C-alpha cells in the first residue's frame, strides 16, 4: 500500500514536510542530491507532531557522515537513515519506506526495527 506524497520537484530541498500516511504522520525530507527519507513526525521527547518542522543537517559519527533531522522542540538530532536519536540511541522516530514513481514521491509501510 503506497501513499502519494507530492511531486519530487514540489518538495523543499534540505527541509522536511509533514504527510499523512493512513493514521500516521510522517516527516518527509528531500536532500540536495534528491534522496528522500521518511521518519515519524512525532517528536518522542515532547510528544508533539513537529519533526517535519526541524532543521535538516549532517553529523560525523565514527568517521562517517550521517544525515540528520533535529527536533525543533528540544533540538535532539535524529539519523534520517535509521530514525535513531544520536544522543539517546534507545529513542527512535520510526522510518517509512520511500519510492519514486516517475517524479512522484510515495511512502509505503513503516519499516521493521532492526
Amino acid at each position, binding site marked *: 500500500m503506497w501513499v502519494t506524497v507530492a511531486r519530487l520537484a514540489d518538495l523543499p530541498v534540505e527541509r522536511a514536510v509533514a504527510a499523512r500516511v493512513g493514521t500516521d504522520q510522517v516527516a518527509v525530507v528531500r536532500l540536495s542530491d534528491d534522496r528522500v527519507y521518511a521518519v515519524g513526525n512525532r517528536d518522542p521527547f515532547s510528544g508533539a*507532531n513537529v519533526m517535519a518542522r526541524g532543521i535538516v543537517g549532517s553529523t560525523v559519527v565514527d568517521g562517517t557522515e550521517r544525515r540528520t533531522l533535529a527536533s525543533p522542540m528540544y533540538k535532539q538530532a535524529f539519523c534520517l537513515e535509521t530514525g535513531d536519536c544520536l544522543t539517546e540511541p534507545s529513542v527512535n522516530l520510526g522510518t517509512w519506506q520511500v519510492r519514486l514513481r516517475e517524479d512522484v514521491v510515495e511512502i509505503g509501510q513503516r519499516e521493521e526495527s532492526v
Partner: protein
Amino acid sequence: MSERIVVVGGGMVAHRFVEALRSRDAEGRFEVVVLAEEPRPPYDRVALTTYFTGRDPQELNLGQDELWQDPLVRLRKGIAATAIDREARTVALSTGERLSYDHLVLATGSSAAVPPVEGSDLRGCFVYRTIDDVADLRGYVEQLRSDHPDRPVRGTVVGGGLLGLEAAGALQALGAESTVVEFAPRLMPLQVDEGGGEQLRRLIEDLGVRVLTGTATAKVLAKRTGRAAAMRFADGSSLDTEVVIFATGVRPRDELARAAGLDVGERGGVVVDEACRTTDSAISAIGEVACIEGRVWGLVAPGYAMAEITADRLLGGSATFPGADSSTKLKLLGVDVASFGDAFATGEGTLEVAYADAVAGVYKKLVLSDDAKTLLGGILVGDASAYASLRPMLGRELGCDPAAFLVPDVGDAAAAGIELPDDAGVCSCNNVTAGQIRTAVSEEGCCSLAEVKGCTKAGTSCGSCLPLVKKLVETEQERAGIEVQRGLCEHFDLSRAELFNAVQVTGLHTFSEIIARHGRGHGCDICKPVVASILASLGNGHILDGEQGGLQDTNDHMLANLQKDGTYSVVPRIPGGEITPDGLMTIGAIAKDFDLYTKITGGQRIDLFGARVDQLPAIWQRLVDAGFESGHAYGKSLRTVKSCVGQTWCRYGVQDSVAMAIALELRYRGLRSPHKLKLGVSGCARECAEARAKDVGVIATEQGWNLYVGGNGGFTPRHAELFAEDLDDAGLVRAIDRFLMYYIRTADRLQRTAAWLEEIDGGLDHVRDVVLHDSLGVADELDAAMADHIGGYQDEWRAVLEDPVKLARFTAFVNDSSPDDSLQYVVERGQRRPVMIAGPDLAVRP
C-alpha cells in the same frame, strides 16, 4: 541546638562574614544575628559615588537577598548594640532588649573623623560615609540649586585623599562647582609621591575641579540663617562656599569594646590576634574596627580576609591573617590612580624607575630592589592598566627590563608576557591566586571566564583584575590542550563574529556557497540559523526567500513562536506599548474567532496562543488588514521597546518617553542580531519602564537622555551600565545605532549584550570609544549598515501574504488539506490550554 553568633555591624565586612560562614556551615551549627545600625541591608560603600548615577540605593546592595532569607540568618536593620556584658555574654540593644551570644563578632567599622574646625557643625557641612550622608548631601545641593537657579552651587571638600576626591566627584555629578582643600603639599599624599601628585593635580584640574594644596582650614563661616557660606584658611584667605564636605579620615568605632574593657590600640581599634580574636576569646573583631598586627586597615580587602578567617576559626579551622598591603587601584573622577607595595621607596637601597609624560597625562613609577630585578612597589597615575599585571609580581623578579612596563604600548606587550607564579594574588578583593584560577580551568572543568568567576569569585568585586583573569583562563585552556572552542559547531571552525566578517567580505549569500567555502558537511540546527541571521543582518531580502527559508529555525520559518504542543503563538507589534481601543478590539475579536489563549506579555504587548500552522495566514491577514505588522517575537531580533507613559500624562515625566520608544521600535524593528534585543525608555529617573533591565535602556533627564547598555533579565539578571549622559535625540539615536550594529558584527551566537560587553577586549570602555569617539574608524560603516536596514525594512508577514510560494508552507500536511486533528485542549480560567498525552512517551527499540 545551634550556637548563636551575634554580629555587631551591618557593613561590607559583616556581609562577607555571614556569607562565608553560611557557605561553609553545612550542618547548621550556628545561627547568626546581624545588628545593622543603618535601616538597610549591607551595601557596597566603595561604590557610594555611583549613587549619583545609579540613583536607586538598592542597586548598591551586596550579594543575594537569599542570604537574608536563610532561616539561620537574621538581619535586624536599624538596631544598634549599646553595651556588651562579657560576663553574661549578652549584648544590650537600642530597643532595650538583651541578646545572648555564644560568640560575638564586632564589625562596627569606622566613622568619619571631622577635624576640630570651628563651624564644622553648621548646616551645609557634611561627611561622606553612608547612603544617608550622600542622600542628605544630594538633597541639600538640589535645594540650593532650586533656590538660586541662576548660578551654580559652590562646594568644597576638605581632604584631598581618596575619599575627598570621591566626594569632589559627587559634587560634580550634582552639578556643583567643587574645590578640594588638602593640608599636605599634594593630593592623595598617602598613595602617591610628588611626581604622581603633580600629574594627578593636572588631570583633576582639567576636569574643572579647583585644587588647593598646602592649605589648612581654619573655620567655616555662617550666614545669618545659620547655613555655611564661606571658609577661612590658616593663612587668612577665604573662599565662598555653601557646601563643605569633610573627608579627612576615619576613626574606628571601638567605643563598645572600650566600654567592655577589651584592649584597644594606641591609635584606636580593637586589638586582635592573627585569628582576629580580641582579648576575650568569645569576641572577634573584623574590618575597620580591628587593630591587627598593630594597625587598623581602612580598606575592604583586609576586612574580607578577616571575615573569612573568623568564619574559618569558628568552624574549627586554623586560618591566620596573611598580612595586607595598602595597594589600591581607583578611578577617581575618571582618572586612574594606582599605588602598590613600597610606593615611596622607603626600603634600603631601593631603586626607582619613573616615566612622566605631562602631555599624555601619565606618571608611572616602579620601585625595585638594589639589583633592579625585584619589583617592590609602584605608582601609576593617568593610566593604571599595568596594575593588574604588576601587583601580583610584588616581591618577585620581573624577568625583563622594568622600563618596558612603563612605556606606552610596549608596556602592554611586556605585561602580557608575564608568567605569574601560582601563589601570586590576582584578585585582591576576594583573595584569589593565579593558581586557583588555573585549577578552576584544569581540574574543576570551568570552560569560560564566566564560569571561572562563578567558581573562584575572582573579579566579582571591583573587577579591576578581569583582564588578567581572562588572560590566565585562556592561557590555561590552551596549555591543558582544551582547544579554546571558538568555532560555531562541527561544520564551522569560525566563530560567529569571524563568519560574519567572512560573509561580509566575500559577499556570498547562500548557505551552500558559504559552507563550501568556510566549512564542511551539510550544516545543522546551530550553524544554519546563524548563517540565516548573518545574511539577514547584511540585508538579503525576506528571511524566507529562496534557500534562506530552509535555514530558519521553526519560529522564523513559520514567523510565529512554537509552543509545547506544536501550535504557535502570534504577537503583533505594538510599538512602545501604545494601542488604540480599536486596535485592542481587533486583536480581541481575532483571538475570540480563532479561540486563541490570550496573555499580556512583559514587553507591553499581547501574545495569542494555540494557532495551528494552517491558521497563521488567516490570522495574519486580519491583523495586517487592521494595520498591524509582525512583532518579530519569533526572531533573534528586536523584540520591544518598553516605555512608561512619560511627560505627556505623568506628573513627574521630564521627556516624552512613549514617542521616543515608538521611534526606536520603528527604527530597529526587524533587525536580526546574535540574540534577542530588548529596549526600554523611561520618562524620568523613577524608571517605571525598567529600562536598566534591557540591552539598551534610555532614561530621560532634564537635559536629554541617559543611555544605559548591557542589561537583561532572564537566567542571569543584570543591570545595564551607564554609557553616555544627557544626549539629545539625534545623539541618542546615533549612539544606539552604532552600539547595536557593532554588537551584531562582533558578538557570539546567542550572546546577549551583557555577556558580549564582558567578553569583548576592552569591555564597555572599548565599545564606548568605538561608538562615541569612532576609535576604530568604523562609525560611517556602522551608520550606513543601519541606514540600509531601515531603508530595506518590510513587514515580513505582509510579504508572505502577498507571495503564494511563501504561503504554501502554511499547511498541516503536504498530501492532505485537513488540519492536524491530534491536538487536544481543556478549558481553564475561561480559556483553552493544551492537554499533552501524559508525559512524553519514548518509543524504545526492542
